[in-house]
């Protein structure tokens, strides 16, 4: 594809040549454009801003459609991101637009981790592109590019300065995405205040080292307009999808009792500038910056983190393949070690359990013995008692028999006496 920059002056081996006639390769840009038309374009915008600041309305206004957004509540426990993809078409250009909105940004009590979901989302998109790029069988030209190309950061129109949440978030994002700060609901600030506000914001950004997206100045055709626009950053925008009749035209505007704020009037707000810069002039550059700067940075960091290097300690180029193979071996060895470890642990656990069970069994056995002994003892005692009782019983019956005999004897003796007395009484 169109690749290396052709040097302005011929370098070694490449000689400038003049053509004697019309060759025809001036149709190359047309061929390129035609191919792109067939493929369609892709653009992803991330909107960060507090709930209710006007993100969805601005998107609707920018792209002149109704994206069917619903209002979110202020009670989200965490910042979430909601991405929606739309297919737009204008004349013969098909655009696949993905709008990602933050939900619940700035609503929590503790906003320390607010930026994290956003950073994670951006990284996830880079990661999936990287994965696709590293695949062996890949299809990059069919890949739906979901990397965030532009990030509109909505600054609330306090008129004073940036909030610390803004600064922290933008600082975290400036190396990952092209940040375009916009002042939302700009119709609440007067012109003079706006001017001071803008200057304050820009100076704060500079002093905190936040790198926002600068419109490119290297192409002469657009350098002039880009330079002017760079001076108007951040854009103070007003969004509206309602129409109000002004004069004899219907314009997008917000109607107040004291007047009408026209969205597309450059005296009223910078909406037209934003649309111009974002879409008409620099869309391609945004995509390019995302791919060549932010994505490359992510890729570099990720691969270095995984341990890949371009040159080994002796400064000889190390092939990715070798490193990958080495890593793979390492990983397999590691896997094996872990497996062994796990097996050992398992065996040990089994042993432990076995010992435990044995102990329990022994204990149980002991108890059983004890109980058995107890039982035998009691039985013996009972036997003893029984014997004693029988002894008692037999001695008692003996005594009873003896007593009865005695009584019988004494009775017969008394009877004889009585008879004798009776007999004597007669005489």
């Amino acid at each position: 594809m169109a690749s290396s920059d052709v040097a302005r002056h011929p370098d070694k081996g490449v000689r400038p040549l003049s053509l004697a006639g019309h060759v025809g390769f001036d149709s190359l840009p047309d061929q390129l454009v035609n191919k792109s038309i067939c493929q369609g374009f892709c653009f992803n915008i991330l909107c960060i801003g507090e709930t209710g600041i006007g993100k969805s309305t601005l998107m609707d206004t920018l792209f002149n459609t109704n994206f069917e957004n619903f209002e979110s509540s202020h009670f989200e426990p965490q910042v979430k991101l909601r991405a929606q993809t739309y297919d737009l078409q204008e004349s013969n250009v098909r655009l696949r637009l993905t709008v990602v909105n933050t939900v619940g940004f700035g609503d929590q009590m503790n906003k320390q981790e607010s930026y994290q979901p956003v950073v994670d989302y951006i990284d996830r998109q880079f990661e999936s592109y990287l994965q696709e790029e590293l695949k062996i069988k890949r299809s990059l030209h069919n890949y739906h590019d979901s990397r965030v190309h532009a990030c509109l950061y909505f600054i609330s129109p306090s008129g004073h300065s940036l909030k610390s949440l803004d600064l922290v978030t933008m600082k975290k994002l400036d190396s990952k995405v092209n940040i375009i700060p916009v002042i939302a609901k700009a119709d609440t600030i007067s012109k003079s205040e706006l001017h001071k506000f803008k200057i304050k914001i820009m100076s704060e950004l500079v002093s905190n080292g936040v790198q926002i997206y600068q419109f490119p100045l290297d192409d002469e055709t657009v350098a002039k307009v880009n330079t002017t626009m760079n001076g108007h950053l951040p854009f103070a925008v007003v969004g509206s999808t309602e129409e109000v009749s002004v004069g004899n035209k219907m314009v997008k505007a917000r109607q107040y009792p004291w007047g009408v704020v026209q969205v597309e009037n450059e005296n009223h707000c910078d909406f037209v500038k934003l649309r111009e810069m974002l879409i008409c002039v620099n869309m391609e550059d945004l995509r390019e910056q995302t791919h060549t700067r932010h994505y490359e940075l992510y890729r570099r960091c990720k691969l270095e983190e995984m341990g890949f290097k371009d040159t080994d300690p002796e400064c000889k180029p190390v092939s990715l393949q070798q490193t990958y193979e080495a890593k793979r071996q390492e990983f397999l060895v590691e896997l094996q070690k872990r497996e062994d470890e796990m097996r050992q642990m398992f065996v040990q656990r089994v042993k432990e359990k076995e010992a435990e069970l044995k102990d329990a069994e022994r204990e149980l056995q002991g108890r059983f013995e004890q109980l058995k002994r107890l039982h035998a003892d009691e039985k013996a005692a009972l036997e003893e008692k029984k014997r004693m009782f029988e002894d008692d019983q037999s001695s008692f019956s003996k005594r009873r028999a003896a007593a009865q005999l005695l009584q019988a004897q004494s009775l017969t003796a008394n009877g004889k006496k009585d008879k004798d007395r009776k007999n004597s009484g007669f005489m």
Partner: protein
Amino acid sequence: MDDCADIYGAEKMTKGPEVFPGYSSSAMSEAVVPDALVSPAVGSMYGEKAGGPTVDFSYVGIDAILEQMRRKAMKQGFELNIMVVGQSGLGKSTLMNTLFKSKVSRKSVLATAQEKIPKTIEIKSISHDIEEKGVRMKLTVIDTPGFGDQINNENCWQPIMKFINDQYEAYLQEEININRKKRIPDSRVHCCIYFIPPTGHCLRPLDVEFMRRLSKVVNIVPVIAKADTLTLEERDFFKKKIREELRANGIDVYPQKEFDEDAEDRMINEKIREMIPFAVVGSDQEYQVNGRRLLGRKTKWGTIEVENIAHCEFAYLRDLLIRTHMQNIKDITSSIHYEMYRVRRLNENNTAVAHANGIPEHHLAAHEM
């Protein structure tokens, strides 16, 4: 849809449309309502083509991206790497000079006193910066002197295949670097023009072998060289024979059938495929013909005009290569041939790098897809 109801409601109250010109109250069903009012859920916007006057606030500007792309492309410049393969004396250099209307061939640049036929095949490339109407291109012509010139031409494709694969390798290495360049220099061979000597009979074994192997790694465009030695009937017969042989041997030359994207492409490419191989005549000298100065070859029996399609098919070749299919050629190289190489390369064990250079080609083909 509520918007519609309001409009119709308003219509009845105020006499005639003052706000929506061209909108008639009677044709409610087929009224052309300006898009700005009906907001479809998934937007479909049109430029200010619909009826009404100046108000173009339904125009967003998305199609300006085409202009941006064009600007970017013009700024970056383009690159094209063409390889010419054929026996010596077939007019390769002349054809290159004719195609690009300037002295791009190696011979013209490094004029040596006597050009000896080299003992082995060499690969020599030379680059030029050319510009036309603001479009800059870096053209690299890769010459293969010595091809088919030896007595024993076995394996003469090997150095060429090695060269092509080396270019893929260089690109791959750059691509998998951690710190890689913003724009990877593209030295991959986009197109290989193979010159068939105008015997008039059929392809020689050398031609078949070479094209069979190379059509798998690069886009091959076969041309019949020095076609002014063939009459029109001989030419047609020769071409038919060549096409049959290509088909019989399973050689897929550019434009490849399997890469046609849609019906439109197929239609265009079928027409081209019916004309392959192009019978070309090259010349970098101009002659006066009918009051015009034309590129041609002057002989005693007439002047052959190079750009006259009644005389030879140079114009078709030029149109195919440059004016219509150049981007497509580069795309097929980068997205198909290069990807195939990459898959092969990443799948193999990290031992023999030289395996892909033609020698165990059949061994490779067994692995492939």
